């Protein structure tokens, strides 16, 4: 039995993760507007509740103003107001919801995984590998993080867990060389999917971003269309700095989608609402735990309703 089953399924866990905040949300709004008119004070409290979920001041205030337009001065119930807000949020998130599509004509379909330090890249690769294997694909992993201590060993363990070959080079090797060797090997073995791990890098470090661009340049020597996906792994605990992360990785590494990790924690990940509005980068999946089956498709409705403390 998997870890997630033991704990009652991801959704329950996601919800229970949001439980505290949900209770806070509902109590907060309930106190103010149950059997009452929606007034300035109530609106400002709702705005603040959105801010505490990391939506950011601007988005929180815009969403609140929208809500006011249609309902200001009206008698509204707690449930109604939360549902309306969840609907608005869902409308923002729906367009960026997109599963990760594996194109069969690429062999391998190369997925480059990038992000700042400790976001959950390597773990996400393990989870993706597990899912692809379950879907019947042949998968190879490449240990492109040759910098961080024991990063290669970490990926090797994920390889063992998921039954995937892991391409490695000694620590300190140029990651571009690892990428090259991995594509070569994956091509030779006609592997369906190659997942390439990279070292964590802060987006404001020009040399590290250049290193990433070199990885892409070198892999294109073997396959001009590679990478077929470049996933930015984003930690849900991140605050407004996520804007800069997405902005820079989008510009310098042409990311094609996001995976949002650690949504099983107390952080509510509201930043993705702001990111969706501003960048429109697709969200492919979310991470809700540390084990291999803790990867879930992103469901905007569930996410929005959870954010507002409503049952999915």
């Amino acid at each position, binding site marked *: 039995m998997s870890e997630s089953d033991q704990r009652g399924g991801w959704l329950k866990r996601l919800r*229970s*993760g949001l439980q*505290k905040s949900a209770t806070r949300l509902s109590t907060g709004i309930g106190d103010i507007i149950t059997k009452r008119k929606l007034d300035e004070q109530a609106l400002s409290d709702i705005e*603040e509740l959105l*801010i*505490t*979920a*990391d939506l*950011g*001041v601007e988005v929180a205030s815009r969403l609140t103003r929208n809500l006011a337009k249609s309902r200001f001065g009206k008698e509204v119930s707690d449930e109604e107001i939360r549902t309306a807000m969840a609907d608005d949020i869902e409308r923002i998130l729906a367009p960026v919801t997109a599963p990760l599509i594996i194109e069969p004509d690429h062999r391998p379909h190369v997925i480059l995984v990038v992000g*700042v*330090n*400790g*976001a*959950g890249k390597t773990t996400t690769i*393990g989870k993706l590998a597990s899912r692809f294997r379950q879907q019947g694909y042949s998968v190879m992993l490449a240990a492109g993080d040759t*910098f*961080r*201590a*024991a*990063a290669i*060993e*970490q990926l*090797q*363990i*994920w390889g063992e*867990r998921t039954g995937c070959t892991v391409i490695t080079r000694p620590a300190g090797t140029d990651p571009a060389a690892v990428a090259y060797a991995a594509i070569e090997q994956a091509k030779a073995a006609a592997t369906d999917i190659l997942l390439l791990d990279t070292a*964590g890098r*802060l*987006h*404001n*470090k020009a040399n590290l971003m250049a290193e990433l661009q070199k990885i892409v340049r070198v892999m294109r020597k073997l396959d001009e269309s590679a990478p077929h996906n470049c996933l930015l792994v984003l*930690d849900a*605990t*991140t*605050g*407004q*700095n*996520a804007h*800069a992360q997405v902005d820079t990785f989008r510009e310098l590494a042409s990311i094609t989608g996001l995976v949002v990790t*650690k949504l*099983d*924690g*107390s*952080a*509510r990940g509201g*930043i993705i609402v702001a990111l969706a509005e501003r960048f429109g980068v697709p969200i492919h999946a979310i991470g809700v735990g*540390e084990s291999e089956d803790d990867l879930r498709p992103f469901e905007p409705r569930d996410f929005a309703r959870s954010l507002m403390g409503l049952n999915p």
Partner: protein
Amino acid sequence: MFESLTSRLGEVFDGLTRRGALSESDIKTALRDVRVALLEADVALPVVKEFIAGIETQATGQAVIKSVTPGQMVVKIVHDRLIEMLGAEVSEINLNAAPPVPILMVGLQGSGKTTTTAKLGKQLVEKHRRKVLMASLDVRRPAAQEQLRVLGDQVLVPTLDIVVGESPVKITERAMRKARQEGYDVVLLDTAGRLSIDDELMAEAAAVRDAAKPVETLLVADAMTGQDAVNTARAFHERIGLTGIALTRVDGDARGGAALSIRAVTGCPIKLLGVGENLDALEPFHPERIASRILGMGDVVSLVEKAAETVNRDDAEKLAARLQKGQFDLEDMLSQLQQLKKMGGLGGVMSLLPGVAKVKKQLAAHSVDDGLIKRQEAIIFSMTRGERLRPAIIKASRKKRIATGAGASVQEVNKLLKQFQQMQGMMKRMRKMGRKGALPPGMAGDLSALPPGLMPPR
């Protein structure tokens, strides 16, 4: 990482300073901007609210004072309060206990615990000449123990042998035993990342704490953390009991409001800053430096200059003229005190000047504070005009009356008179040296250059 917060707040204050005299509604506007700036910097909302509320009460009380703009008052108060909230002084890792001193590292997944453990180990060995043992209690994450072992090899700090299948508490006990037997000074315990809402793992961390009885328990937190910083910090503090904070990824460009949030909810000092992936990228936390970075010292300094300019020029010129003639009485002393107060009090003036932390501490040690200025003022107010112009006539009975009127003791009146004499003496000396001006220049850097009235009596 604090750069962007600095520039954001800088904009706010630019607006304030250029507008000159501000109404109370301007204070409100300014604080609205400050609120947005802090929220955009990821300071948690409850912390922001408390911060703003504190400033609002202070600012509204003080806004009536002439010749200091409300904007300057806001700057001074925001700045003071930022420093206050970040913690008044540098806080070092506490090693004051019988060896082996256990230090426990805790935090969310991926926050930088293992890396920070190795950095700290390296620093304790190289800078503090301690014999350090590191142990990984992370039996969950793939290759976590191996990671610490590799790092230990890199920084030449021994790590506890890895025994597969051992529980975190057992590893802790083995580490402490080995440290005692082999004469280690410090044991660094690196733990697995855990969510604050994961009861099972929080209980495990508490069990490890009970086994190790750490002298320091450091929460390792990412500077990029958003609003959740307060929840996480509070939960870790409640469940495990923190003694300090290590803030990582300060080399990023996050605005770093999490520092303020975590500090505010735990009350624990921020002891370490992680400023890179390399193993010597660890710095002590200087609250004043960081607060200054947050505020932008350049702006603040120019504000002080402006504040100095707003000091009533007439008064200053009159005083200068009198000093030229060798005249200095208690009314002059009073007007000096009042000018100081207008500029936001001694503390305000001092904290607005760069590099005055030391002086400020010195002053605090001698209990020279804004309260003193107010008491001295009250004593002078309690005198008749004749007494102020001719202090020599103030004898025992007058002293008693003055003291009663000011709600002070006769000793305090004596102290003031003595300080007045010192001040008078110094003014005379200054005249001889051909210097003029109400406030001696360079008072920030050199305590002895302060007006003697503000010098602690020996």
